[in-house]
């Protein structure tokens, strides 16, 4: 935050405007950056396969298939009229000599993370919009750069240096204008809209550029002789609300004046991860509860590892048929992310609760996250973790879980105890509930 100290009591009234134009108030003085990676998937493919460079490249479904669409295409392919989300058959028709590549999401996600790491270096207020787009709130950081243009160059250069990829950047006083600015500069764009230029920037643009104006809305506006944002701005608020409805009219009235107060909202990380299931029929059999718990642990563990986190605490939740619910926690000094460790703590919690009546619901969660785990000089506890990660990798390949732990398998009690209804319960296992 930047503080501007003003002594109101001695400042002549007439100078107020002069002062506020030099020192904009916080509400109008934001600096929002929109970063949009150019042809993200296609650029990564070209980076990894130099032979693709400079050629029409289409990332998407199999061109021989009747279904599926274009995910991203290179600018060379765009020259043939190929666009994102176009049916892949159509893309093939327009540009049959293009290189067609199936998407490699894990690689794209890895690059997206690298870009995110770069952005995090500039400000803690980063709001990712998608895998290849993000808003940054750089308010208060302006003086680190000779100009906003230099700020944009620094961000583009840092991304290029870390990933080899090109980003288009828009810098403006709010999200709407920043996104518009990055869009207009593509590819390899850098457009800065300073507060005093907002109107001259917006006025010549077609009304379709206003966020919220779809094909229908645009047709209606054009029918009224409104094709540019400047023309829309000439209309009164009541007129717009009459023509477009109360809220859309209000919305476009403000956008046409470059007003957008949505804050850049950094996504805060999850505070806990858990899975629970409700049984079709209440369960008391400890070995069934144990195998269900093992399944839930496998799910929670996989998510924990996928997020790249380690947890300190395991929580066990039980609900009885009368809806009384108990939760118990166990904290480990050393953070963990492997299934064995989570299960060991969870089963100890389950055993510490005297399950003397049937259970309606069982759940397990992990919390108390850290992003890093201290390695030990003398004890190598990476084995259990490595096993879990290998299982994740194998299970990620097929559909369904190819590898399971023995403890997840349920052995019904000995036959003499078996009642006709045995075998119930696990039916619910296939669909544990995400919490």
């Amino acid at each position: 935050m930047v503080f501007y100290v003003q002594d109101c009591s001695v400042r002549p009234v007439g100078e107020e405007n002069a002062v506020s134009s030099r020192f904009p108030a916080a509400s109008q003085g934001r600096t929002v950056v929109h970063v949009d990676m150019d042809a993200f998937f296609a650029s990564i493919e070209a980076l990894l396969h130099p032979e693709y460079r400079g050629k029409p490249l289409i990332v998407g479904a199999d061109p021989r298939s009747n279904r599926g669409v274009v995910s991203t295409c290179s600018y060379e392919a765009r020259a043939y009229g190929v666009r994102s989300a176009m049916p892949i058959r159509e893309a093939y028709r327009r540009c049959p000599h293009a290189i067609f590549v199936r998407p490699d999401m894990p690689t794209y996600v890895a690059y997206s993370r690298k870009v995110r790491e770069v952005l995090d270096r500039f400000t803690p207020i980063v709001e990712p919009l998608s895998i290849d787009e993000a808003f940054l709130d750089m308010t208060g950081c302006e003086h680190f750069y000779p100009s906003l243009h230099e700020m944009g160059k620094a961000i583009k250069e840092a991304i290029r240096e870390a990933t080899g990829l090109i980003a288009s950047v828009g810098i403006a006083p709010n999200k709407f204008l920043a996104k518009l600015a990055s869009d207009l500069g593509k590819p390899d764009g850098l457009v800065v809209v300073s507060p005093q230029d907002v109107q001259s920037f917006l006025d010549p643009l077609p009304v379709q550029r206003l966020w919220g104006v779809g094909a229908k809305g645009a047709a209606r506006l054009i029918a009224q002789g409104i094709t540019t944002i400047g023309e829309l701005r000439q209309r009164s608020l009541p007129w717009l609300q009459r023509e477009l409805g109360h809220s859309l009219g209000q919305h476009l009235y403000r956008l046409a004046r470059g007003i957008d107060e949505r804050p850049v909202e950094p996504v805060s990380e999850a505070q806990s991860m858990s899975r629970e299931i409700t049984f079709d029929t209440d369960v008391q059999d400890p070995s069934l509860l144990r195998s269900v718990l093992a399944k839930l642990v496998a799910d929670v563990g996989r998510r924990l590892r996928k997020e790249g986190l380690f947890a300190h605490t395991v929580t066990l939740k039980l609900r009885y048929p009368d809806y009384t619910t108990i939760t118990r926690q166990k904290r480990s000094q050393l953070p963990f992310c492997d299934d064995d460790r989570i299960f060991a703590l969870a089963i100890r919690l389950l055993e510490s609760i005297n399950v003397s009546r049937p259970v309606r619901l069982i759940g397990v969660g992990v919390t108390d996250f850290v992003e890093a785990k201290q390695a030990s000089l003398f004890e190598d506890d990476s084995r259990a973790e490595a096993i879990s990660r290998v299982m994740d990798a194998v299970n990620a390949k097929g559909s369904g879980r190819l590898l399971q732990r023995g403890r997840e398998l349920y052995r019904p009690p000995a036959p003499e105890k078996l009642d006709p209804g045995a075998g119930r319960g696990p039916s619910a296992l296939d669909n544990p509930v995400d919490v």
Partner: protein
Amino acid sequence: MEFVCQREELLRGISIVERAATSKESMQILEGIYIRAEGDHLHLAATDLELSIECDVPATVVQQGEAVLGSKVLSPIVRKLVGDQLVYRTSESGVAQIESGPSHFTVHTMVADEFPALPEVESTGLWRISQGELRRLIRHTAFAAATDDSRPFLTGVFVEVEQDEIRLVATDSSRLAFRRGKLLEETDRPRSGIVPVRALSELMRILDDDDDAVVEFEITESQAVFRAAGVQMISRVIEGQFPDYRRVLATDQPTRFRLDRIQLLAAVERVALIARRSTPVVRLAVKGETLSLSSREAEVGQAYEELTVVKEGEDLETAYQARFLTEVLRAMDSDQVEVGLGDGLRQGSITPVGDENYVYIVMPVRVG
């Protein structure tokens, strides 16, 4: 018992021994300082049964005898008195009278017979080392010991004596500090033991500034004995098997670079500021001749800094707990340090340039 002594001398003695007195309420007698007047001196002692410290203070003994006074009573009185001389006298009823300058105190004493017998030194001959050498050995290693007592054998410093060499090693299992030093004479009795960090830090307080003064010491099966400047300290040794430190003492990392110690320390301290809410972690990345340090904390922000280094080997990235870097860099004396970064989960090292007797090993933190 009755004696007259210099107040400053008595205060010095009390300050040395009182640190061994317990602060726990459980055994009142262990809160006391034992005083015995005999010949031309006072013998002062305190112990909490793990650590005992004794020393002598010159005095004119009028009537010999012994007494135990609560250290929390005696120590502040002697410190605040203004006279040069102090007169002490115990009456029949066990009440002590202390006079100095214009002040007169009457203080209840504890029964001296209840004071535990201090451990006898089981020595077969003490080793000798210079104060300067011992100080450096402790200063360079003790900070690396474990502070939580889940593994008691890591809460001490492993002391190993062999021929004319002494080696101190401390580790909390995430990092390890090793220093090698010289004894004044060779010994034919190789020995090792784990000495509690508390005993060594008390010893540091007792040792004076004279680097050349001699400390006599010995480690036996059950105790560590140190004698210096008229003070004797006996500590129990910690039971347990100290880990095989030689196995991890590797300094052949694939990336090594040299730089100014203070510069690196200051950079790590700055970058770590951002992450002070949890355990601060600093990422180190070497690329060409540039070392970059960075740190991030969700919902706080990020820090980034670059230093120029003289590098050998490959470019590498790793991350360490900031504390594991700052503590060793503060403890070291050299102007330049050599840092080795391990790849993957292998250990890194920090060594002072021009001093091959000191090795610090640090394990990285794994970022998930």
